[in-house]
């Protein structure tokens, strides 16, 4: 668990406030030579609001929940413990439970296979220690409730089960399909009729009857699908996002955004529709959408052309006209075949206070101030050394990879993934030069780029290609290739602490600083 011992110091030339990332945990680590099963590849990661729980979804349609081990108590007790124990420990998680959220389906009307792959997970408001979350694949969103339930063991019955059943103990362990009372031909309808209301009971009741006694109080976690929001998307759902009002959420596909009430699964309202009358006129699709963290009427969505639109739900029912548009003017003369492809935004995230929006396109991370639509307040080059290789990346489709991005809870840092299981963390404070490169492995600093770290906002800070270790397969003839198959697409920052969870294929790595 504490494999960060031999971690190198982050960017020696960097400013002192740079974080030193250490390895914390790994779940589902691959042993050398083990082949990754397609279904095990993680496709979504999400911390809940408190940071006490973490959920991952995978291509096999499963959702796995992890819970924090170091602070396990709710409410004020946790605060007390913190006060007693000021030495802040980094968050550690343990496996909590998992469930099959989506199954592969077939749309008979359109002759389309619907993958079970989980595209996004979002946590909803916790209530009574039951956890709630939304998970979605390409077409269907599901609302899950995960709760501890008592395992019932009934020991005292009125009717001897051995007399009616086949010797089964009438407990919850009885397999479905064996109905102890009905099996022997006792017809319940008839017997209930006999208990019609005019059947006279003695006023004192019948002493020989007694209530079943529940003996065991063991509990087990049960995940139940409470609602299914289906048949509202013609295209693939790319994002879901909860509203701060606690009762609605949105789901976005390539061309439309729908608004749902959590309690109502059979109707949704279309609030954005960018589908042109003629599909041949289509030039831009929606790539990601998110609600403002506190203003219930505001949401942002990004497009394949690199713009972010902010819309105000108060203005009209169908918000095809944006309130604000954020996009960067293209530098003249820089246009190439790839310009539009790499401009496509793969993910947007609001900062915790809702002032900033972080966006990720193929080559950069951009931070936007929602009060300034002239251009981003900061741009971070993620893997500028790939620019000469765009042609190769296009050939093998890697250029269409959708990297996610995340902000730290305090909004001071941002992170995103890259190839060869690398991810990068940047400081966003003006003057910060923090720009770390880490590898999703037990030794995150192994890949530390040795070039002196220059201010991250300048272009081409990373012109040198990182040399691959000898143990990695797939080195090309020049010896400087990147492994495009190991890409770190999904990662999440803990809401309150400097801790990052990221997915490398089927493994979940956690780091802290």
């Amino acid at each position, binding site marked *: 668990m504490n494999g960060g011992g031999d971690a190198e110091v982050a960017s020696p030339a960097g400013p002192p406030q740079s974080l030193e990332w250490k390895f914390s945990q790994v779940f589902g680590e691959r042993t050398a030579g083990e082949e990754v099963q397609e279904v095990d590849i993680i496709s979504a990661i999400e911390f809940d609001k408190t940071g006490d729980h973490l959920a991952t979804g995978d291509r096999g349609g499963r959702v796995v929940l992890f819970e924090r081990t170091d602070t396990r108590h709710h409410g004020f007790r946790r605060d007390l413990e913190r006060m007693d124990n000021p030495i802040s420990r980094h968050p550690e998680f343990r496996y909590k439970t998992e469930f099959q959220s989506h199954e592969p389906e077939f749309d008979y009307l359109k002759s389309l296979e619907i993958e079970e792959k989980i595209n996004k997970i979002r946590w909803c408001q916790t209530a009574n220690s039951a956890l709630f979350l939304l998970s979605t694949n390409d077409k269907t969103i599901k609302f899950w409730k995960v709760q501890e339930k008592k395992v019932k063991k009934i020991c005292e019955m009125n009717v001897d089960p051995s007399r009616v059943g086949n010797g089964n103990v009438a407990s919850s362990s009885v397999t479905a399909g064996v109905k102890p009372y009905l099996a022997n031909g006792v017809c319940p309808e008839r017997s209930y009729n006999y208990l019609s209301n005019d059947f006279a009971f003695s*006023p004192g009741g019948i002493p020989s009857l007694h209530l079943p006694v529940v003996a065991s109080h063991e509990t087990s976690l049960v995940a139940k699908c409470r609602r299914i929001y289906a048949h509202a998307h013609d295209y693939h759902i790319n994002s879901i996002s909860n509203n701060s009002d606690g009762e609605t959420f949105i789901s976005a596909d390539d061309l439309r955004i729908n608004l749902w009430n959590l309690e109502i699964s059979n109707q949704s309202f279309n609030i954005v529709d960018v589908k042109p009358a003629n599909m041949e006129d289509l030039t831009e699709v929606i790539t990601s959408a998110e609600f403002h963290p506190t203003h219930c009427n505001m949401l942002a969505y990004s497009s394949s052309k690199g713009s972010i639109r902010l819309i105000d739900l108060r203005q*009209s029912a169908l918000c095809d006209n944006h309130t604000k548009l954020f996009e960067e003017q293209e530098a003249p003369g820089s246009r190439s075949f790839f310009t539009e492809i790499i401009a496509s935004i793969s993910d947007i995230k609001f900062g915790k206070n809702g002032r900033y929006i972080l966006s990720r396109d193929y080559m950069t991370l951009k931070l936007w101030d929602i009060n300034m639509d002239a251009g981003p307040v900061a741009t971070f080059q993620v893997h500028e050394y790939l620019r000469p290789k765009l042609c190769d990346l296009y050939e093998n489709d890697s250029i269409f990879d959708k990297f996610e991005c995340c902000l730290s809870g305090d909004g001071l840092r941002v992170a995103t993934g890259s190839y060869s299981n690398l991810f990068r963390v940047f400081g966003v404070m003006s003057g910060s030069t923090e720009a770390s490169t880490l590898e999703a492995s037990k030794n995150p600093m192994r890949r530390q780029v040795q070039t002196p770290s220059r201010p991250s906002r300048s272009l081409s800070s990373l012109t040198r290609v990182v040399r691959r270790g000898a143990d990695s397969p797939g080195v090309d003839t020049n010896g400087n290739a990147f492994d495009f198959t190991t890409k770190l697409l999904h990662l999440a920052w803990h809401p309150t602490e400097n801790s990052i969870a990221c997915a490398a294929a089927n493994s979940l790595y956690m780091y802290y600083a």
Partner: protein
Amino acid sequence: MAMIDEPLYPIAVLIDELKNEDIQLRLNSIRRLSTIARALGEERTRKELIPFLSENNDDDDEVLLAMAEELGVFVPYVGGVEYANILLPPLETLCTVEETCVRDKAVESLCRIGAQMKESDLVEWFIPLVKRLAAGEWFTARVSSCGLFHIAYPSAPEMLKTELRSIYSQLCQDDMPMVRRSAASNLGKFAATVEPTHLKTDIMSIFEDLTQDDQDSVRLLAVEGCAALGKLLEPQDCVAHILPVIVNFSQDKSWRVRYMVANQLYELCEAVGPEPTRTDLVPAYVRLLRDNEAEVRIAAAGKVTKFCRILNPQLAIQHILPCVKELSSDSSQHVRSALASVIMGMAPILGKDATIEQLLPIFLSLLKDEFPDVRLNIISKLDQVNQVIGIDLLSQSLLPAIVELAEDRHWRVRLAIIEYIPLLASQLGVGFFDDKLGALCMQWLEDKVYSIRDAAANNLKRLAEEFGPDWTMQHIIPQVLEMANNPHYLYRMTILNAISLLAPVMGSDITCSKLLQVVTNASKDRVPNIKFNVAKVLQSLIPIVDQSVVEQTIRPCLVELSEDPDVDVRFFARQALQTSEQVMMSS
């Protein structure tokens, strides 16, 4: 494991199944909870059953919902009102569960029980429960508590009343929007129980907080509060405190809030009285009618008649009518449709002259609307205008509109206009109908869509009822019979259907002389579907015609059909024969 006597066996099973693995059986037992309670007796119900239910509350939501409902009517089974407090703990737990419908039901049951409880018991048991829920750690409990204050408050002593008011005020400022929403939607009920002095101070300040909430979803619930509170306040207070809020809401940034105002405006007008309505709400309403958002205009347009009814005609003509004119050419078809569905009702309000002068052009333009729903909505309310100005002025435009709808390419539109044909016939009179619409009615019998043919047949029946047998003999029967030899069997079947519908209206004589012949001829049809429908029609004719006709014509025909090679034909023919035998025996 105890052994149970035979007579008790069912009840024993019922009790055991409270904990069965199968949710259906558990639900069944919970729904029979009263039976179980009576079997156990009042004392054991109090001491065993209720605690048992309190403990076993982690069941599925469906079971919990049923439990919450049953407990609401459980007072008699625990020994009457003096023991009612026994029922509070399990319901209190149910008030905190995650599923909204369970909580709502538990709150409803608690209110029902609380309404029966003695004042001293309420103070001892119910009020502490409300306070516990209101201070609940999870928002679910606090949400539920809001719906209980109106039961708790009236019986509370002065000190407690002050406390309850301040707790409610806190709930209205809760961090969780769900709690504030619940507080906002229950405010009217709670306010109704609060003394007038506190109403003006405490409740109004709570209300003002809610009206400024930054969550749209809370503010729009406060709109409903306006009407509820307005009815409780003295008129002058209402004008001073509620009216400005309504006017503000009508200009809220959020269209959803303005939509609520548009929807509620009529109630709000009632609350503030006629004079403020005239001075303040008419301008507010005019703004809503011209709102940027189509949804708001739809809501406002739908209330135009209701609103005009509380104004004098002059005001309506001066302020509302110009907006109505604009709306009649609104860019949104749904706005025009909403307007068309109510605008005819304005005719009686405005009177004959104003209707002819002002409304008629609007009617006529809506009758030519490109969107069929708009035209249909106008046609469906024709009677309201007819009473005021007569139909003649409209009929010129009406006919093209009807003909166009009758030939619309969407069958649902055609279906809708058929439904209105009898209404139109009664309004337009026989003469107009004969000239223009008769042919249409026949044309629908040969529509491509079954539902239209079916509706067309039914329409003929309703016309026959409207205009009487003589008229029908002249204008319907000959045309229908002509079509009985249509080369397509589906159309022949429609005619059979029409005959079976017309026969009861036309009576025995005409049926025997005109209709029966056609049916019996059809029994020689080469299509089995026609033949078994003949059997069905004949069966329906048996009660209408004379016994002798049954003997001489219907039965021989059925007998022949009952030996048909087709199994379905034989089946229906035999069924009809059986009916005829039953009729004979009974007569």
